């Protein structure tokens, strides 16, 4: 703990990042309780009013829905999806990457080639196509699909860290002790690779927010009435001239969260990997 404080002092920017993340977490947990409006409530008297008018702190959109309420509610879904995605894709990626790297040879070749195929399709396009085919996306399907789109990247990172650890002598020592493969992979090697894997997971967290927002913007994300930051941007695009705030605030929300998480992930990598 003291060490973390020492590192924070050395990297003051990380404090900003962590503060923004905490702000959004608070918003997601208790934000809705502090609001005057709900995200679906239509205030037909106050359509397209500017920030601060009639109790709408960030204004309203063309239907008269409160922007603040929708941004706050939107943080819930986006954080849930992004968190689950980063956990799930790391989990699958570690299992796949470890298996491939550990056994090597043909297993590894098959793994690498299939990952190449998956990577050849941009993750955004891949998820769009699958989501488009599936139709209405829910939090579950969105999480699954974005995770799958991210698996090649996490798997490759896990394979890389495994390969450097695999040549260590403690692995040889475990082998001539007659340990089985699963034990060597997950009891001997895994604890020593947590640094890079956690860093990758936090970076994935930022990527998945971008991804979910992009999918929302493209109209294949979460379906209305669930508020989605990406979707809010596209919904209000036609009225951007009259109500710039309706586009601006969700965009700021996306940007602040993504940048904050990226800063945080940088910090984590400095603490866990570089300054050991």
């Amino acid at each position, binding site marked *: 703990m003291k060490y973390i404080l020492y590192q924070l002092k050395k990297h003051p920017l990380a404090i900003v990042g962590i503060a923004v993340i905490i702000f959004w977490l608070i918003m997601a947990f208790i934000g809705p309780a502090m609001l005057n409006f709900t995200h679906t409530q239509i205030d037909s008297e106050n359509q397209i009013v500017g920030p601060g008018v009639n109790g709408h702190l960030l204004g309203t959109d063309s239907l008269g829905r409160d922007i603040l309420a929708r941004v706050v509610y939107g943080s819930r879904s986006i954080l849930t999806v992004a968190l689950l995605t980063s956990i799930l894709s790391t989990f699958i990626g570690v299992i796949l990457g470890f298996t491939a790297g550990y056994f090597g040879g043909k297993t590894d070749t098959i793994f690498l080639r299939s990952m190449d195929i998956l990577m050849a399709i941009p993750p955004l396009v891949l998820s769009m196509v699958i989501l488009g085919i599936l139709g209405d996306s829910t939090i579950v399907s969105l999480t699954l699909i974005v995770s799958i789109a991210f698996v090649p990247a996490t798997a490759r990172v896990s394979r890389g860290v495994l390969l450097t650890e695999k040549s260590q*002598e403690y692995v040889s020592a475990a082998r001539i002790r007659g340990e089985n493969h699963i034990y060597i992979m997950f009891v001997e090697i895994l604890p020593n690779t947590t640094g890079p894997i956690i860093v990758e997971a936090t970076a994935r967290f930022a990527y998945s927010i971008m991804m979910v927002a992009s999918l929302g913007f493209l109209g294949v994300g979460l379906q209305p009435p669930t508020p989605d930051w990406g979707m809010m941007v596209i919904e209000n695009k036609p009225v951007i001239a009259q109500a710039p705030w309706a586009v601006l605030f969700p965009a700021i929300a996306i940007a602040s969260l993504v940048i904050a998480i990226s800063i945080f992930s940088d910090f984590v990598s400095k603490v866990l990997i570089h300054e050991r």
Partner: protein
Amino acid sequence: MKDNILEIENLNVRFSTFDGLFTAVNNVSLTLGYNESIGIIGESGCGKSTLSFSVMRYLASNAVVDGAIRYKEENLLEKSEREMEKYRGDRIAMVFQNPYSSLNPALTIGFQLDEVSIHHQKLSKKAARKATIEALEMMNLGDPKGIARRYPHQVSGGIQQRICIAMALLCRPDLLLLDEPTTALDVTTEAVILDSIKELKDRLNMSLIYVSHDMGVINKVAEHVVVMYSGEIVERGPKQEIFDHPSHPYTRALINCMPRGGVVKEKTKLNTIPGYVRRRGANEGGCPFVDRCDKRNDTCESKYGVRQVGEKHFAACDRAYATDIPEVLHEKLVPKVRETREDATKPTDLLRVEQLHKIYGSRRKVYAVNGIDFSVEPRSVIGIVGESGCGKSTTGHMVSGLYKPTKGRILFNDVDISIAWNKRNKETLKNIQLIFQNPGRSLNPSHTVEQIIGRAMKKLADISDPNERREKIISILKKVDLGKEYLEKKPRQLSGGEQQRVAIARALSISPNLIVCDEPTSALDVSVQASVLNLLNDLQVETEAAYMFISHDLNVINYLSDYIMVMYAGKIAEYGKRDEVMNPPFHPYTEALLSAVPEVDPTKQKDPIELLGQLPDPAKKPKGCPFAGRCHRQVGEICEREYPSMVTASDTHYYYCHIKPTA
């Protein structure tokens, strides 16, 4: 004073870290005259490298330096980075420990060397190349033009280091700093490099600072010796005086703990220095060595200061021969000696290796081990010695099951075990244990000591009750001189010697019959090496396990082994009982190895037999004697043409050479 090229005055180097200020060099004053050479010696963590780095001003950004370093009357610490550039590489040059990381792998050797003279002496490209070739010639490198065209990875480690030295010499510096330049190299290469350094120093009128942990090496190149401990100079003076009359207990202990040539386990127990270098706070008084010193008295904790002992001999303490020490410490170190068993029948061999081959790679073959036969008797120690790349580790790894032999058989208690680990049965896995070279890497960094040792017990000795296991672990830790408090520690919290003790404990915990020790002491400090060797010997006597001890250090092998096997290029060069092999050596290679070992005692200087050339290309199957190309006793054409037949000198002693014993 015009006669000193370098004067260091009250130099302090501190690093500000998470744990607060850490003193690496504490109040060091030193002078170096023109054409003089100084050897700095001490254990790792004593600040000797930091001292040499601070002369070059190569220090990390969190370093706080004060004091003065005067090079020809100019304080280097007051220079700007730009001004420093004029000194670095030009007037003051440095050679680092690791040649492969100090050469750029993407550029040719010639290009990298040319750059130096183009930058510093503003030579034209052509003139620079000429200087490069000249420098390479100075280091006795055959075919300098060819080498200049090659990339660093295309030459061997020894040649790389000679190239690094040639690079340092390009601008004819007045001061050359060498930071353990031969530590990573074989003894034979080391001998060649040390000789050329010595010769060039006189030829080019350089002053030399040579940093090493090895008394033998310092003895060869330096005229003055500086002993550092925990960032402070504890003793300095002319070499001869330091060796003859070390005044500080640390110096004396350091000289005594090296296993010298001719010291064997039956007669002597190695001297050790208990404990390890303690990190000191910034302003701690007293002698830094006090907590490890067996000659300490009441004043040691408070008083400290360097005094003059001889004409040029300074020391911080003169209690090296003090006799007013507690009675317990007078106890003479007596080694445990194995009792000779009276069962007259020759014991059946524990391990028998027949025509063992290992070939790596499929397309480009590397012949690592080329058909060796040997056997290991139970309760005996066989030492395998040879330069790096001779196949000694591969042999050990095949016996322990890490690799499957390509051809040949390994019989353990008459059971064929020439299969890989995953096909071996539990009994075999339990009976053959392996101790690795680098304890830091062979212990899982995220497991505790208890987990590390306990897992082997649970897996191979079927002790499933955790309490029973814990008790056994505690007793085994006690055997390797570690206390109960180590159970919950992780390898990172232990020193190198402690880590190796844990590794030894792990191997012993399941009472194996054969322990393969793959250079277990070469990653350790000399003082720690001595205590680990003592421990290994005591435990061998106690547990009656057989050892297969692999090392590149003949002194260590000589100390511990009953049988010695000398390997060269995947073949056995000589095999026999220790005394048969060592006095005198029969095979020319054994002779060369023996002569290359640096002598600790300066009165016993010897001329090493210089082995020129390199190991034969392991990708080709040699036709004649593999050693023929480097042999100093070649008898003739036959050496190149025919593999020599076995010469039997006695029942237990044989070697492969065309030179037959006379009568």
